[in-house]
């Protein structure tokens, strides 16, 4: 006999878990199906943990602002220490073009009320002592942005969900969805539901196909690593936007354990979902980081990993009921920002499904609608 739920979330990752939590909060009977053995085992745990609201677009800004509120209150509200730190983000500029772009963007960000400012090289050297001053023109600094542990956050959501009565089906792969009779088939069983939420990360397009949708979500690979812990020596996330041979931007921060975590974007992109590390990464990222911040030379790398950004062509997620569909909801194409968007999007999803949309929700959803031309580009992804 089919198991019956109000909502089934496909994917127990950084987006699926908060969505399940929020849906269960609203009183719905929720289940989560994931093809991994436990929560947050795919890209969720590959994220390095940065959380910023300082984007370029209304939807992302609003959603991330809410995520920051939720993350920063997690310990107070639910008793889970997820390692939240309000350590801020910084985008240093080493050329006029970047400086102008960042400053122009700041105007937009200010118009949305974000706390971000331009600081001088000298001030920046106080925040990141020992950063390469040669050619440094200044940096943005947004102190309200922060970081948390994606591993702890995923498990905090998992435990909260369990308490709220959410059922989890791990090691189970969805093989078919019939929206007419509300049936989900997996390699193990069958479910009857009112709503299906696609939060399948890398597998978003496959799930989309099961309901007749072409979702333009293609994962590409990014490599990350973490160092040994040392005493805190710099404050914010540092994002070096400059491209170099073989890579685009990279970014790093010191987490609440004292470990420096970093990630680089390969150029050209490495498509696919292979999560095995190559020999290219260590020398590539190390040369760039030591050049930017010589002090890092003595810091030991402990471990590295590779994960994917489920990318859309324009760098914006795809969220919402697709046109003409009432019982299927997209929560896909996070483009590497699932961790920081997840909690805010989870609540938005619930408001959509329970028909409790707020005034500005349609404006937010407008940025993420499936039916768009995808030709625009996020200012910085």
């Amino acid at each position: 006999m089919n198991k019956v739920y109000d909502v089934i979330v496909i994917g127990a990752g950084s987006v699926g878990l908060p969505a399940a939590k929020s849906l269960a909060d609203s009183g719905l009977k929720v289940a989560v199906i994931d093809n991994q053995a436990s929560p947050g085992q795919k890209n969720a745990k590959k994220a390095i943990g940065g959380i910023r609201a300082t984007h370029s677009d209304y939807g992302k800004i609003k959603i991330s602002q809410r995520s920051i509120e939720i993350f920063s209150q997690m310990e107070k509200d639910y008793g889970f220490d997820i390692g939240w730190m309000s350590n801020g983000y910084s985008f240093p500029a080493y050329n006029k073009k970047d400086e102008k772009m960042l400053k122009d963007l700041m105007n937009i960000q200010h118009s949305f009320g974000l706390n971000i400012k331009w600081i001088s090289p000298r001030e920046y050297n106080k925040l990141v002592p020992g950063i390469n001053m040669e050619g440094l023109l200044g940096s943005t600094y947004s102190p309200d942005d922060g970081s948390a542990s994606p591993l702890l956050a995923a498990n905090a959501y998992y435990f909260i969900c369990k308490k709220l009565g959410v059922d989890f089906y791990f090691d189970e792969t969805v093989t078919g969805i019939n929206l007419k009779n509300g049936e989900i088939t997996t390699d193990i069983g069958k479910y009857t539901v009112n709503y299906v939420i696609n939060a399948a990360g890398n597998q978003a397009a496959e799930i989309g196909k099961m309901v007749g949708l072409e979702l333009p979500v293609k994962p590409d690979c990014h490599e990350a690593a973490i160092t040994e812990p040392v005493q805190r020596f710099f404050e914010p996330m540092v994002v070096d936007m400059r491209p170099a041979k073989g890579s685009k931007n990279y970014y790093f921060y010191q987490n609440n354990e004292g470990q420096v975590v970093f990630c680089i974007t390969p150029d050209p992109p490495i498509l696919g979902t292979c999560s095995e590390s190559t020999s290219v990464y260590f020398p590539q990222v190390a040369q760039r980081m030591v050049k930017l911040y010589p002090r890092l030379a003595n810091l030991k790398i402990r471990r590295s990993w590779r994960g994917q950004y489920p990318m859309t062509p324009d760098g914006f997620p795809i969220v919402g009921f697709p046109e003409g569909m009432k019982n299927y909801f997209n929560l896909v194409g996070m483009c590497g920002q699932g961790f920081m968007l997840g909690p805010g999007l989870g609540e938005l999803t619930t408001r959509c499904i329970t028909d409790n949309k707020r005034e500005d929700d349609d404006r937010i959803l407008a940025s993420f609608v499936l039916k768009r031309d995808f030709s625009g580009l996020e200012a910085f992804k």
Partner: protein
Amino acid sequence: MIGNRIRQHPILPVAERSQITFYWNNQPLQAEKGEMIATALFANGIKVFGHHHKDGSALGIFCANGQCAKCTVIANGKPVKSCMTPLKENMIVESVEGLPILPEADNEPKMHDIEEIATDVLIIGGGPAGLSAGLQLAKYGISAILVDDKNELGGKLVLQTHKFFGSVVDSYAGTRGIDIGKLLSEEISQTKEIETWTNSTAIYVFHDQKVGILKDGEYKIVQPKLVLNTAGAREKFLRFAGNTLGGIYGAGAFQTLVNRDLVRPTQRLFIIGGGNVGLIAGYHALQAGIEVVGLVEAMPQCGGYKVHADKLQRLGVPIYTSHTIISAGGDEVVKSITIAEITDKFEVIKGTEKSFACDTILIAVGLEPVSEFTQAAERAGLTVFSAGDASEIAEASSAMFNGKILGVKVARFLGADAPEIPQAWYEKATILKSHPGEVLDPVYTDAHEGVMPIVHCRQEIPCNPCSTICPTNSIHLYGDPIMGLPYFDGKCVGCGECVRICPGLAITIVDYRENNSHPLVTIPYEVGNIPVEVGTKVPAVDIKGDLLGMMEVAKVLKKHKTKTQLIKLKVPHDLARKVAGIRIQDEAVSAPLPEVILSKKLDDDAMVCLCERVTAGEIRKLIRQGITDLNQIKAITRAGMGPCGAKTCDSLIRQLMRQEGISADKIIANTKRPAFVEVPLGIYAGAEGGDDE
């Protein structure tokens, strides 16, 4: 109290080395040139190198093998692993109290691109298996790079002062491990095909089929056609209350300090585990002048060779079988151990607890293969073979022979004109790794005249030197030419060669010719650090160490090149064939404390992840919530996220799961990721002038 430096050793040469000065927390200290920082600290009696940033517990030596980071100190401002970092003149060494401070560096260093080197074969690990494989490759003209993380080739052979078992023809049986190590490394260095890289740690076999190597502080990328994983094994750890105290570490670390560095890290030692590793460590300790208080083994019989266990017991070390460790006592470092008897279901029998004073507890509870290079290469689609402990845990003699087979196999695989491997080799390989057989009762013949060897060896093990060396070919093996039990049948000339070569020290010679009522019994002696003088009376024991009486020393033969001394005792006629050795350790050493010390700590307080300080209780709680994915346990508790890379806690967590009734197929393994050891960013970046020189 004796000093911390071993100035005299019955087996190992003690070289005079020049002294240098260094500073430990501002205090000037002396060290020997060329030794590791950890060694110098131990030589100065310093065993606590810092305190953990999470709970303030003492940190010090643990693996002495570069695998963990518990021995981290600050050397000239930089956090380094003290067991792998050579001490330099005037070096300023400081303890790590909490998290270290990353030194400042304002100038961008000069950086160069990382060199990539192509080779036919990359051999990871220059121990018995890797060296033997390399020699065969060279023989058939295959070129290879052999990397080893130590400054000297030989792997664990360089720590083995005892004579090896196995077969004389195939694996140097009867020769001491240290000497075999030297022989093999010399042979390797004479080949032109094998390029050896010492001080070179393999970092990872990457998915693009390239292997990162940290070579003498520089990062290199090797691109091999084929990888041989001969990286050996790592030691398992044990869960018990107080297992985080300073002075609790593996037998490998102990042997490194004692036999490689000639430093006495302890005065009073207790050993957990009666496999060969634990038994041999006890023997090494006695040779280094260390008191061995006792050894516990959970099974009713030691898993190691009986001859090893007998050697220890004869010298006066009690072995407590069907016993386990309950707890270790002490504030910061070990001061006592409490053990108890257990049932065949491993339940502690109340009332059998005993406590002993000791300052160090060695954990020798088994090994597990360093298999990650094999797994990563397989995932990358790179051809990989393995031999020695990296493939299957067995004796070094087996590693050598299997390495040899693998070398020929790989040469053939790569198209060299090498002969087909004879079936007999595979059969011999199986014999060399066979477990010891059951113990048989001693049989003493009736003969009471002339001269003859008495073979006390009563357990089938792969070993044959006695039968090989006898000049009159009078020692034979029952059945199998390696595994069979030896027996004497023929003519004995009383030369003593069999007594000298027997790795188990299980042969004596009884000579009735001069005095039939008090024949002379020749026994082997390898603890010359405790001299025996002619004319004195010594406590003579039987093969298992039971006291037979005080016997007069009639003769002490001069030291022989094998370093096994022969001693002749004057023994009453009816005991002559039973005498097998001399007790050297006083019974008082092994006496339990008058009162049992029961720890206030529970099993739940036992540390499972020493790096991140995660207790058994924390993990048990998660298991009881139904969590069986090691990755999820890691995500929640950080167990396995520390510097050792889950090398210690992985098996402890699996053990906890089994105890909680989780079947092995339900347990999801930790995902293995780069890198094998921690490496500074500057080294990956090819930064120059990173060193102080």
